[in-house]
């Protein structure tokens, strides 16, 4: 790590060109150990950084990004950004750089063990997971550690810095006719129990062996945390962005104050939460905070950056994305509140339905209705009379996210980090839903 003094001093180099300047600097040291066929086959480490310089000249905006984090590199990037701004038509919607003077919250700092984690330690954790697998079961997955530090310095007087660590692990256990999945994340590598992940993934392989085919149709379901997280993340893309809300492209446009989900559903965006920590500031330098989006099933808010917040008259909620950004504010730390049910209680509430471990390759079908499609994978089970009776072949679903959560009958007590294909990470509990529409099946 370079630390606050070194990173902010470098950012100052960009400001020496004078005028309205915003410098966002980040530095990341990441390492990912990947295994397949129960052996480590890809093992990488990367040290990189980025300076993103935004220069404003009379409403004209230029942005330059570089990973040359030298004084000369920063200065050259700022010069180039000014050159771009001078040649660019003015943006009438640009709200100006963020003024100083906001109070910033705090997030957990870096964990020393994670910070210095050697590749041998990651290999040991992989081995610990593999040791828990049943006979004749192989596994694939990842063990990743990273540290990121970020600073913003602006000509308006903002000068902030934050750093944090992250450790995540996943295990896909693979049997002859079935597979099982488990994953976890923490701010410190000591918070991961990789042996437990191996056991859990392995148990699903045994439970799901020789899966039967279920016909397409609507079923009540229990979704594990990873599957619920996928649903919540899609709401983050389709329903919660401030620009979509302003332009009446969101399912929530004109519906704030309305009941849109089950009263059991509460969703917030909170980069300050210790459960899923981000930074105390967004890339525009606005202080991040807990933003209520759905409160007991009622739509109460959306995510704004400074531009979309100005249009809505609410101001930014601290959800800006790196400039230039045409998407508007996005919630990147979505949390769905846990309930009180154990997994056994969630399953016990199903007379006949399906238990879904996770979804695969989800994508939008109809944005305004929050309808998405995707597949189940790595642990899909039939539940009868309140207990899992065996595995089923994977199914494709096509389902509105809001409609699914409108039928939320129970919410699990535990939340766990779930990383999703393409869309980062969020946190949501397991849930029981009254109906979920599966539109076709596959061959395994």
């Amino acid at each position: 790590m370079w630390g606050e003094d070194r990173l902010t001093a470098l950012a100052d180099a960009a400001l020496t060109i004078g005028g309205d300047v915003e410098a966002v600097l980040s530095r990341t040291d990441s390492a990912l150990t990947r295994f397949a066929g129960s052996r480590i086959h890809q093992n990488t480490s990367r040290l990189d950084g980025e300076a993103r310089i935004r220069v404003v000249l009379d409403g004209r905006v230029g942005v330059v990004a570089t990973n040359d984090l030298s004084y000369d590199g920063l200065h050259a990037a700022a010069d180039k950004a000014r050159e771009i701004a001078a040649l660019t038509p003015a943006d009438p919607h640009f709200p100006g750089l963020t003024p100083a003077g906001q109070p910033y919250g705090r997030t957990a700092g870096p964990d020393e063990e994670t910070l210095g984690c050697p590749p041998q330690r990651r290999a040991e954790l992989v081995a610990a997971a593999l040791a828990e697998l049943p006979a004749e079961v192989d596994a694939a997955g990842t063990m990743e550690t990273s540290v990121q530090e970020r600073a913003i310095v602006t000509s308006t007087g903002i000068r902030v810095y934050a750093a944090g660590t992250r450790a995540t692990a996943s295990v896909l256990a693979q049997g002859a006719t079935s597979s099982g999945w488990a994953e976890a994340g923490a701010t410190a590598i000591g918070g991961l129990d990789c042996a437990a992940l191996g056991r859990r993934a392995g148990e699903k392989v045994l439970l799901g062996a020789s899966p039967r085919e279920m016909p397409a149709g609507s079923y009540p379901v229990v979704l594990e945390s990873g599957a619920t997280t996928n649903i919540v993340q899609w709401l983050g893309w389709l329903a919660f962005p401030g620009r979509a809300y302003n332009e009446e492209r969101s399912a929530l446009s004109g519906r704030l104050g309305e009941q849109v989900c089950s009263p059991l559903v509460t969703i917030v965006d909170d980069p300050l939460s210790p459960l899923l920590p981000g930074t105390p500031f967004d890339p525009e330098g606005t202080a991040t905070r807990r933003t209520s989006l759905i409160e007991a099933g009622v739509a109460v808010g959306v995510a704004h950056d400074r531009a979309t917040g100005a249009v809505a008259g609410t101001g930014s909620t601290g959800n800006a994305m790196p400039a230039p950004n045409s998407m508007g504010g996005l919630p990147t730390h979505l949390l769905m509140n846990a309930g009180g049910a154990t997994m056994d209680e969630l399953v016990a509430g199903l007379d006949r339905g399906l238990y879904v471990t996770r979804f695969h390759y989800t994508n939008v079908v109809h944005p305004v209705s929050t309808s998405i499609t995707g597949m189940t994978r790595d642990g899909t089970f039939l539940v009868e009379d309140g207990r899992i009776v065996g595995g089923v072949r994977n199914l494709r679903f096509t389902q509105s996210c809001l409609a699914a959560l409108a039928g939320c009958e129970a919410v699990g007590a535990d939340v766990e980090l779930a990383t999703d294909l393409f869309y980062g990470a969020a946190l949501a509990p397991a849930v029981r839903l009254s109906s979920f529409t599966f539109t076709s099946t596959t061959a395994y």
Partner: protein
Amino acid sequence: MEGVSRGSSSGVGIRAVYDGAWGFAATNDPSPDAVRRAAQQAVEVARASARVRGRDDQRAVLDERRASTGTYTTPHERDPLEVPLSEKVDHLLAATTAARDAADVSFVEASTDAWRITTSYRDSAGGSVDQRVLQVGGGLVAYAVGGGEVQRRSFPNSFGGQYETGGWERVLLLDLAGCAPDTARDAVALLDAPDLPYREDAVLLLESSQLALQIHESVGHAVELDRILGSEAAYAGTSWVSATDRGSLRYGSPLMTVIADATTPHAMGTFGYDDEGVPAGQAAIVTDGVLTGYLTDRQSAAQLGEQSNGTARADSWGAIPLIRMNNVSLQPKEGDRASIVADTDDGVLFLTNRSWSIDDRRLNFQFGCEVAYEIRGGQLGRMYRNPTYAGRTPDFWGSCDALGGQSDWKVWGVPNCGKGQPSQTARVAHGAPTGRFRATVGVR
């Protein structure tokens, strides 16, 4: 003008083998000391990999080949990064103005991107390749919002338009301003169009850009040999194709011939050498409907006792090379879209991708398009909005009974192909004519 930015990223990535196990380390610091440290780190990481070898104690072996030396530069007339910014701005604003003048669209976006990728490859066997690849793209999207619908039409394709290798002249050939009015009018017309009704075993025609994405998802990814051998299992999945299927697996109808060709002029997946120093070439993937090859790198090819066909690519200096598609193209037959429509009594024509999803073995897929048209008695009829189609890969390709000819064939760039952990994004391409198939349509 909503966003103008320029970015640069440079660094050194080092891959090392220790006792048959891989390690990789990368740094954005080009100083000799930092590069030396990265090399030592790569070996350290490889030592850690060697601690978890799996039940079969498999060791990394590369194919036998003479070390490559050479240079390559993408043929071009005007380096897109040297074109004055004002010229690009004028070009885009002319397109958005033409669209706004033609129809009552809600908003219009036009964009252009350009990349200049300079690579120096060296290996301890004497390999030495220097390469500069130029990639460009541009496009237009018109949106119409109203009545709970968000409809869009993209020109010439979704994902930001068409992407190719070459210079700024490739963007000018798109004629964005000339094609903007029709694009805008179609977007507005979609608001009043009916949804495509559900129908099983329907006859559907895919125009070439949608067929290109169908090839991408259900052929290109499925024949990546690293995926087939399991190395992507925990993330994007495996494949329904096995490493012993070559020469015997019927992939589709006898009309289906697919070739991977990294030398196709102007195509997005064209280069001189891959990131293992293997010269660009061609490989037969499917011949007359039968699987005849895979996409390979040096390690996976060696497992089959062969030589790599040169598809190992990394998305940056900070990433390891993975097997990635180059230009994986369905070969043309005869006729064109008009003649296939005229030959169709009852069907649906799908245009321009909007959504895609496929299972983790590349079997069960569902796509959404921006627009569809009814075909009755060989004539195009009414417009449909929110069209989707779904099927299974071998059934779908087996149903192919018409493919357009050379005049109907076009290569489409796909700029957002995701794979690997840490996730990498590749820019690839697919040539395709119009094709006729059978599948379920109107799923929602």
